[in-house]
């Protein structure tokens, strides 16, 4: 079992020198595992990768619909929740791609489909140029060494009936490290790496605090020495003071091990802090995708602008008129025609409700180098326009347009 898998994981880095310190799987021959880990640590992770960076994960036109079934045997199809509805992007080796958006925008579903924890409806995901959706069980298992996940809820993501050692050691066990002593050695090393006391290996998750549990979850993800980790809201359930500890840990591990993250979070300040590039999702689509500085300084989609404007800042001096969107997010079962945001769009209103917003679905197009947005009127966004949109909205309490 060990042989072919090891070859799969190492085929892209035959020239990499063995690096026993880097946390490569201890149970695999050092020469075979290679070391993508650490390679990045010297140079790549320090600076955000440029546009020509090697593509590690490629997502192409990914669609995930959840059918709504009914009828006598629950087989007839009544409709579908269009959770992810045609999403394409690349994740480059060594970078953190942040994914933001409100609840129900499909970001968590997207993460799960990429990991093949949910079957896709259509589209493709490939990691290291290897499409994963067609893979059989054993080949998929090999790919799982390359991609791992850290979940949001540190209470739900750890099996309460397993010890820390069993939880962290499960990946290596499943992938062939049957030797208990070696496995424990590996687990201890991983616990040290995520800042936990190695003597806690025989304890149960419920004995730990939220932040520590999240570290256990991270250690579990690292155990297979993956290249790519999907972090699904990894700090949202944590206290403010603990959040920063975990964010720093993720940062350190990326530097040290050359990891690539897809970082899903609703907190845009957290996304900004951790990410090199950021995608913003709305109703199953990516509406904007740009380098982090560009996106936060000069957003080119009216939804991104509104989202950023809505974040309350911890600075009473910056109290300002916010651009408050009206109504609620429409149902993903029956999304609006054309641009999905047009029902709540402040820009469209400013421009006198142009027709193509309702009729034509905008494609993600390049606005400037390193910035793509899916809006027909991106160029019309100006600081003055945003300002006046914020100021000229009717008092919220008194007039509220129906969203549905």
């Amino acid at each position, binding site marked *: 079992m060990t042989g072919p898998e090891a070859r799969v994981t190492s085929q892209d880095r035959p020239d990499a020198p063995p690096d026993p310190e880097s946390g490569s799987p201890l149970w695999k021959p050092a020469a075979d595992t290679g070391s993508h880990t650490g390679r990045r640590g010297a140079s790549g992770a320090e600076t955000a990768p440029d546009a020509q960076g090697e593509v590690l994960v490629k997502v192409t036109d990914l669609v995930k619909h959840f059918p709504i079934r009914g009828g006598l045997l629950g087989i007839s199809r009544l409709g579908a929740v269009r959770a992810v509805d045609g999403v394409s992007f690349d994740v480059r080796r060594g970078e953190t791609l942040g994914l933001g958006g409100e609840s129900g925008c499909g970001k968590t579903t997207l993460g799960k489909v990429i990991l093949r924890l949910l079957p896709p409806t259509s589209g493709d995901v490939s990691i290291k140029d290897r499409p994963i959706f067609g893979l059989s069980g054993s080949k998929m*298992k090999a790919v799982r060494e390359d991609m*791992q996940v850290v*979940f949001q809820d540190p209470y739900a993501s*750890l*099996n309460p009936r397993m010890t820390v050692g069993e939880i962290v050691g499960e990946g290596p066990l*499943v*992938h062939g490290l049957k030797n208990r002593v070696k496995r424990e050695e590996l687990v201890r090393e991983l616990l040290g790496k995520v800042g936990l006391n190695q003597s806690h290996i025989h*304890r*149960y998750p419920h004995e730990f605090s939220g932040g520590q549990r999240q570290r256990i979850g991270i250690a579990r993800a690292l155990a*297979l020495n993956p290249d790519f980790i999907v972090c699904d809201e990894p700090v949202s359930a944590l206290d403010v003071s603990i959040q920063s500890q975990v964010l720093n840990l993720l940062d350190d591990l990326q530097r040290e091990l050359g990891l690539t993250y897809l970082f899903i979070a609703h907190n845009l300040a957290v996304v900004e802090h951790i990410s090199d590039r950021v995608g913003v999702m709305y109703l199953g689509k990516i509406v904007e995708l740009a380098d982090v500085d560009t996106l936060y300084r000069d957003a080119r989609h009216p939804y991104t602008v509104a989202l950023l404007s809505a974040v309350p800042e911890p600075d009473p001096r910056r109290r300002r008129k916010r651009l408050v969107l009206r109504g609620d997010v429409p149902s993903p079962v029956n999304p609006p025609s054309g641009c999905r945001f047009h029902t709540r769009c402040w820009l469209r209103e400013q421009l006198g409700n142009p027709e193509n917003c309702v009729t034509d679905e905008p494609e993600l197009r390049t606005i400037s180098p390193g910035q793509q947005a899916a809006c027909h009127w991106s160029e019309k966004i100006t600081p003055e326009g945003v300002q006046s949109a914020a100021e000229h909205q009717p008092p919220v309490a008194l007039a509220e347009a129906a969203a549905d």
Partner: protein
Amino acid sequence: MDRTEPVDRPIGTTTVAGGRDAEDEVDLIPIRTYWQLARQRFIQHRLAVIALFTLLVLVSIAIVVPTFTGLEYRLTDLTERNAGPTLTAPLGHDELGVNLFVRLAKATQTSLIIGGAAVMIIVGIGTFVGSIAGYAGGWVDNLLMRLVDIVLSLPVLFIILMIVSFFGGGDVRVIIIAIGITGWTLAARLIRAEFLALRGADFVQAAKALGAGHRRIITRHILPSAMAPLVVAAALGVADSVVTEAALSFLGFGISATEASLGTMLNKFSIYFYSAPERILYPSLVLVLIVLSASFLGDGIRDALDPRQRIASK
């Protein structure tokens, strides 16, 4: 405030380094294995401990007394007709001079055997159907759950009566099977609900992401967490089976009248309802004790197996 351990450590100047503080909190809890913890939680559950003790007493009586008295439970001795309690017959004798204590012990044995064996069938079928339905979901789930609905809609006692009278009344094995194959629906539903919920749990998803196979996911992750409803289903199953057997025998469709079971005793002594109510009281009491103990014990085990349940400090 009481603590289990003296935990005060020198604080102040030396702890500025922080960081490791987090672990210090964890270190306060002494390391115990899963089973040690489970036992501790169980002992805390006072009713369950009493129930366990009661069941143990009943089981030992049901094992010991019939072993040493052999066929005495059938022995009629007309000289002892309706005799009062003595040292060797603490419950007295019936109208044919049968030692009631011995007969009650034998009856308890029969009922417990039937209850225990039937519950294995119940839990077996229930777990099988429930876990497949819950894990697979979709149309498989739908199909199996409709099957459960159908079984559930049948008049159970009537079906059991039919099976028993068709395959030969009086045979303990037939009774066990009849109770078993009609009684698994609740277990299946409980297990299925648990599987359905756990299938989407983050820790199961994480195991899937690690590359764990279906078998490992089911046996290591889902089943252990589904133990709680399983135990409850088993406890209720035991109680149910014992009661069903009693009902069958009471109606005369159970085991043959010469054999002893709680049901046949109730049946036989129902005519003494006014003249000698204690003859009904004894088997009824045993029946109630079995049913109550089984369900309290089930509760206790369920809580004991849940590591999230806190352990009170002394």
